[in-house]
């Protein structure tokens, strides 16, 4: 990211929302006028600085402190996420979850709208991979993609993936998902992400995984009241009571790794431990079926021979029709009836009739 673009990104992040309109932060307006060096801009600075002071008194200094901390975080790590670009103003904002419609590009934090941009290519693909893996877990209730959770009217948060009970109903889900997954790519609003995590934990989320797609792939494992830990490829993520199986880190973004996990999970859902388990059961069933089929075939063959022997013994010449009917009959019960008929028949036609009965 170039210096100019970076500055623009910072300024976007710092914007102030006035009755639904996005406005430059006063500090950015002052900095811009100061940098221009033009007489008319410099003349306006004293009044502008006074207004800034007045505005901060009205809205609280926290906003500026917050803006600075957001900048520091963005400067240290330029991560990005599919969602969320904004900075909170202190105090409650005017918006409520029931004013936001499905499809509106906003989340809500303390009544302030957080604009959400469409997901980037890499983030969208990775989230789809993670969705597949989590959806296949045998213990899973539901997985939602960007489902809006509203634990209270002034909060509406939509994790990239949410795992838990999600009623099959329109509108926002209540509370918060027990497990939430966020994908963070270039441009991530780190300050907002921290607030989002706090809000979800406050509403009941027990596990939150942030899949970092920039730099070396890794997953931040967040849990309430615990230090965040990093999990790297090769390590497993666990969510006891929510997922039955551990999730390998790479299965949350790598489709090949995900397929292996999905396959294992699907087998487990059907009661198998592994593919070898399936193979062993197939072989056993094949052997059993083979034995049954072999026994029936042996029995039929014995009956055919017995019928032929009785015919010869009684001087009944088996014509072509009778021989063909005997050869094509595999049902031991029919052949047995034909054998009984052969014992008393006066002609091959009576045996044939028994075979065709």
């Amino acid at each position, binding site marked *: 990211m170039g210096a100019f673009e970076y500055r623009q990104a910072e300024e976007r992040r710092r914007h102030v929302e006035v009755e639904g*309109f996005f406005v430059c932060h006063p500090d950015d307006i002052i900095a811009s006028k100061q940098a221009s060096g033009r007489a*008319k801009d410099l003349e306006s600075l004293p009044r502008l600085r006074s207004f800034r002071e007045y505005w901060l008194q009205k809205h609280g200094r926290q906003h500026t402190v917050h803006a600075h901390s957001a900048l520091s975080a963005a400067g240290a790590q330029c991560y990005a996420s599919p969602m969320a670009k904004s900075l909170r103003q202190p105090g409650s904002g005017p918006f409520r979850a029931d004013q936001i419609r499905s499809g509106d590009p906003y989340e809500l934090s303390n009544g302030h709208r957080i604009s959400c941009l469409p997901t980037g290519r890499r983030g969208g693909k990775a989230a789809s991979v993670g969705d597949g893996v989590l959806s296949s877990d045998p213990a899973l209730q539901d997985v939602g993609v960007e489902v809006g959770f509203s634990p209270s009217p002034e909060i509406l948060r939509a994790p990239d993936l949410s795992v838990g009970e999600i009623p099959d109903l329109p509108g926002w889900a209540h509370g918060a998902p027990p497990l939430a997954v966020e994908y963070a790519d270039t441009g991530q609003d780190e300050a907002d992400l921290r607030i989002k995590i706090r809000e979800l934990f406050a509403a009941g989320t027990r596990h939150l995984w942030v899949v970092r797609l920039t730099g070396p792939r890794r997953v931040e494992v967040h849990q309430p009241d615990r230090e965040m830990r990093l999990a790297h490829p090769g390590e497993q993520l666990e969510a006891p009571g929510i997922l039955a199986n551990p999730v390998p880190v790479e299965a949350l973004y790598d489709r090949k790794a995900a397929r292996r996990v999905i396959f294992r999970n699907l087998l487990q859902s059907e009661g198998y431990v592994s593919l070898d388990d399936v193979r062993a059961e197939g072989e056993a069933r094949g052997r059993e079926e083979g034995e049954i089929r072999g026994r029936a075939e042996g029995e039929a063959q014995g009956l055919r021979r017995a019928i032929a022997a009785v015919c010869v013994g009684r001087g009944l010449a088996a014509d072509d029709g009778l021989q063909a009917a005997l050869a094509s009959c595999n049902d031991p019960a029919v052949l047995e009836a034909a054998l009984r008929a052969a014992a008393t028949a006066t002609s091959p036609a009576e045996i044939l009739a028994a075979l065709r009965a």
Partner: protein
Amino acid sequence: MGSDTSQKTGLADIPAEWLAEFEAAARRPLRARFRYAFIHTYKPVLDDEPFRAFDTTADYRRWCEENLPDWLGYGRV
């Protein structure tokens, strides 16, 4: 953030007249503030063409310095 932070002012330093104006503006609804924000004042030379286009801000500023009256304030100090 910008270097303006080195020149801090407190509410007590704000002229009473400005403070009254800020308070009055804060009481106005956004619609009225928009209306007041776009009152046009004619600026000689600058407003004499329907539009001009520049490739860069630097080009625009150079043009301002070379063509506009000094008292308009578009020149660098």
